[in-house]
């Protein structure tokens, strides 16, 4: 187990990953402890810690060695020796960008969507949520992951039920019970995996040990355990037909809650599939891949159709998430480098564009106090800047080339095409439907002549523009130049595909290359060749 040993040797330097989890948790505690006589400090403390965490995640990005495929910057603190459970954190190309996304989105949500009452608990829960999310993305111990995966439910439950809209209690309960139902299976799976894997020897929850030693479990056991994990993740993603908690939770959650729920928390499910599905159970993954891709493609079409028929803007965006996450599930189970890279990238893209959409809807709500499209009209004339930003984010969500959403969708569809051709051809119709529901929504809300209720509203303030600016910049940048992101994802994804190939009879399809000279070597210089 050289990687494990090497990782443990690296703990002498500053434990930046641990810091990234501890700092927001400490921030939550400190925010909660701010004196009642100094209420103005609450937001300042919370923002300070959120920004500090964001800076730490950028630090992780800076320290990340893009040539390494394995886990980096690992921290390990022994916790329990038998069974071996540890505070083991590590980052690779798959989790790196989700960590950075979390670090960026939380301060933006905090600044862009302040609560209308009870600031202190709101910010404290939000920071605790951030700690949980980062912990889940960084955990290399299955038990630690489970704990983190569960911890995030509590703050989100309180955020929805405490600061949400009219139906918030119903939505919060539904969200909580539904996800708990899934997690129950994962708890059983986690414990069973560790003990069955031990075969009577020392029990360990170390992810890398469990994953790298394949062949210990019987085929049937592996498949059952995969399903135990898969149900938890499928609820979280959510995969159709386990998705109905999402529209309710999104509609009722406060803006910041929706941003984080869509931007970060849904990714716990898709990330879970990659880390605890593909990595832990390669054989079962291969076995269930056609079913999972089918569910993903169904989600793309089904989510888009449901989104088209929504009357409430937040529900519409929620169903569009179901469709987008369907792409990610399909790409993940395509088991190709392109599909997996596209999936990881699309997790980030979806976080940016859907996060931005929910922020904009929140800003719209501040002005109009409704999400009902029937009541909104002609707003492009009233609030042209908001409309312009909305248009850009919408086009990113539709998958317009030149904006971030396209790159992820293209790679997912391409990767899926290589192993499941007809699924990809059907899934590609999702891009038609996406344009239907989003353009229709845009027309109803922003086009036409505004009636009296929709005139005289203030356009985006400078503070709101500043909140949107980083998201808009990233949406354009990742569409024009996604290579720095893809370069860092690639080695880890290639390693994961190789891991599956080593442990099953799966072989990634290789495309034939006509002539090595064409298109590949002609970069950065002009080549003149004969015409045919």
């Amino acid at each position: 187990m050289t990687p494990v040993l090497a990782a443990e040797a690296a703990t002498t330097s500053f434990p930046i990953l641990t810091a990234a989890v501890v700092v927001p948790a400490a921030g939550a505690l400190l925010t909660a402890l701010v004196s009642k006589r100094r209420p103005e400090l609450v937001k300042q403390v919370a923002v300070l810690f959120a920004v500090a965490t964001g800076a730490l995640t950028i630090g992780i990005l800076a320290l990340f060695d893009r040539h390494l495929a394995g886990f980096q910057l690992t921290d390990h603190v022994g916790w329990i020796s038998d069974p071996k459970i540890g505070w083991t954190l590590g980052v690779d190309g798959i989790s790196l960008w989700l960590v950075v996304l979390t670090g960026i989105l939380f301060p933006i949500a905090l600044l862009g969507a302040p609560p209308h009452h009870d600031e202190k608990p709101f910010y404290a829960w939000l920071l605790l949520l951030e700690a949980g999310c980062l912990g889940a993305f960084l955990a290399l111990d299955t038990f630690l992951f489970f704990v983190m995966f569960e911890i995030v439910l509590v703050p989100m439950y309180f955020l929805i039920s405490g600061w949400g809209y009219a139906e918030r209690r119903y939505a919060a309960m539904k969200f909580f019970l539904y996800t708990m139902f899934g997690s129950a299976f994962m708890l059983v799976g986690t414990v069973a995996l560790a003990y069955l894997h031990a075969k009577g020897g020392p029990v360990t929850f170390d992810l890398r040990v469990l994953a790298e030693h394949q062949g210990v479990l019987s085929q049937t056991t592996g498949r059952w355990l995969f399903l135990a994990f898969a149900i938890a993740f499928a609820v979280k993603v959510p995969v159709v037909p386990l998705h109905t908690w999402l529209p309710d939770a999104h509609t009722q959650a406060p803006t910041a809650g929706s941003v984080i729920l869509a931007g970060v928390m849904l990714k716990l499910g898709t990330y879970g599939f990659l880390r605890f599905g593909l990595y832990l159970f390669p054989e079962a993954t291969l076995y269930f891949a056609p079913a999972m891709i089918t569910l993903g493609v169904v989600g793309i079409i089904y989510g888009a159709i449901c989104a088209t028929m929504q009357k409430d803007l937040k529900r519409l965006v929620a169903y569009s998430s179901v469709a987008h996450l369907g792409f990610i599930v399909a790409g993940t189970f395509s088991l190709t480098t392109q599909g997996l890279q596209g999936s990881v990238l699309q997790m980030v893209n979806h976080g940016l564009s859907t996060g931005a959409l929910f922020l904009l809807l929140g800003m719209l709500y501040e002005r109009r106090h409704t999400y009902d499209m029937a009541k909104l009209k002609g707003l492009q004339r009233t609030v042209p800047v908001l409309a312009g930003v909305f248009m850009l984010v919408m086009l990113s969500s539709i998958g317009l080339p030149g904006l971030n959403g396209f790159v992820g969708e293209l790679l997912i569809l391409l990767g899926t095409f290589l192993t499941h051709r007809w699924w990809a051809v059907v899934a590609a119709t999702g891009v038609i439907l996406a344009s239907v529901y989003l353009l229709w929504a845009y027309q109803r809300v922003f086009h036409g002549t505004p009636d009296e209720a929709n005139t005289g509203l203030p356009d985006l303030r400078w503070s709101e523009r500043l909140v949107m600016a980083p998201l808009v910049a990233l949406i354009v940048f990742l569409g024009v130049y996604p290579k720095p992101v893809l370069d860092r994802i690639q080695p880890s994804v290639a390693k994961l595909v190789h891991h599956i190939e080593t442990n099953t009879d799966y072989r990634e399809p290789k495309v034939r290359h006509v002539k090595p000279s064409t298109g590949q070597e002609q970069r950065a210089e002009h080549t003149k060749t004969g015409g045919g």
Partner: protein
Amino acid sequence: MRDLIWLIPALPLAGFAILLVAGKRLGESLAGWLATAMVGASFLVTVGVFLTARGSAGGHEHRLTQSLYTWIVAGDFRVDLGFLVDPLSISMCLFVTGIAALIHLYSIGYMHGDERYHQFFMYLNLFVFSMLMLVLGDNLLVTFLGWEGVGACSYFLISFWFDQEANASAGKKAFVTNRIGDWGFMCSIFFTFSALGTISYVGIIDGASSLPQTTATAIAGLLFVGAIGKSAQLPLFVWLPDAMAGPTPVSALIHAATMVTAGVYVMTRINPVLAQTADWLPTLIATVGAVTALFAATVALAQNDIKKVLAYSTVSQLGYMFLAVGSGAYVAAIFHMITHAFFKALLFLGAGSVIHGVGGEQDMRRMGALRKLMPITAATFIVGWLAIAGVPPFSGFFSKDEILLYAWDKSPVLWAIGLVTAILTAFYMGRQVFMVFYGHARWDDARPAAAADGAHLAGEAEHSAEAVEVEETGADAEGAVVTAHAATDAGADVDHAHAGAHGDVHPHESPWTMTLPLVLLAGGAVVAGALNMPFASRLQLLEHWLEPVVHAGQAHLSVGSGVKVALGAVAVIGALAGLAFAVLVYLRDRRDIAEKVEQPVFARGWGYDAAISAFVDGPGRRIFDAVAWFDRTIVDGAVNGVATLVRGGGDRARTLQSGYVRNYALGVAFGAVVLVGLLLSRAVF
């Protein structure tokens, strides 16, 4: 000049960026001139690259790639943001930038007084950038970037006057319909990559000969699906007539001269693949083109909206281009694309000048006798008319004749359809010219009842009414501002604007920024035929120039020169017959014959669009509703049902349960702690 290829698209992009950031501050005329200058400079760079390319290799066998950076890389899939300059792309760039510059210039006058003037030019610059990326891209994906970009700009510009719901719907319809085609384009990219391991054009062209027939058919067939959407062919043409809701310069640039020809360009680009396909595919392409050409021509016969006639005419002419592609006549397709760009842009801009001059009226029944009041517009429009009608020596004759020649070689049936279309074209364009510029003045007449078909174009009417008023008081600068405001207020009420326009119409010639482009385009429409004269091999400039690009797919004629001359003569006689008939019916004003020609079924476009709308609003909507109902009632209902069952069972155990979820939540948190504690205890003991 080769290092400067990137400048060709970069200049309009810079114009877009400047207008986005500072457009409002630049003020009206500066914003327009800046955008025009950017596209003009882009044209000059293109000319420079063209001359270098011609000089360096004697006009033969060369292609040049320039890569800026690696755009997307994932596993074996690697795509550069790169440009390919070869005779095809440089020809496209020349006419795209050239005509775009003229239309920008025209728009300075046309959009005068619009409150979102700078945004109009911002979108227009972005469009030119996207179109150039489409044309210059050295692989399918960069072309797709431009392809979607022009689609988005088309959407922005069709719904530019978004106050009117109809304009907004037209923009949405264009985007969504195009997306159906884009699905084909994307799938084609996947097939190409999985078959060849690359999507660069150089790789595709070099590797095409090794493609299995099925794969080649899939690639070309799916790309044709994309082309059908973008180039408005049956069955996806429905968005283009509606797209006339956009300002007229947009119709001229995007929906006549450039964007809609993108499908023809892409099919020509991959002609080596098309050469490897099963025989049915080229035949299908030619048939779709021929049928679309005839279909749209019949619809154009009975339109009364000056722009709708031209819209259906564009669909029809694009049909000719696909007839050429399907017949293997790629040079003829590109030739017709270029001549069509000149005369159709000219006709649209002329129509815009007329609309501008008569205060926003678009119904031809309320025009007439305008040739004396708008002499430049009338003269140039007539040039465009003769060109599209195929009267020698105007450009349209040469390009259309060449297509018909290859169509004859492919199948006499296709040729016959093309010929009938040509006769109809000469006729309906004659009808338009006579209704607009000849006869007696009808702009003060009472409104015809059926004029409502132009209702959704009211945005344009409103806008032009505004611009006209501004101009009339233009002598007094201060007065102009005041009037502009007054007109804006009036413009809020469409009917009011109409009434204002009708009460007091004074048709007048347009300003020089609008007439100069007309004159230049008319010049092009006259002489563009010289690009490819059939009389001698050395006169076939375009054919020699494009030869290296199309040699793999280009069909070789088997007909003798006697047949060629005979077919040409038949085409000329057909065109003249169409003109003569138009003279008889419309110049002599024989309403009895006209009523027989203008069948209601033509006016309704054979009910095609209505049928699609009925399907989408009827069964289509019901299916979507059913799915949404299923989601609400069955899927979510099951979840809530389980919850109810559990709660029912839970009631018996109420003594333990408070029923408050927050208690459960805390319970879970504590439960996790207890579990950890248990394990800890296990570790300790």
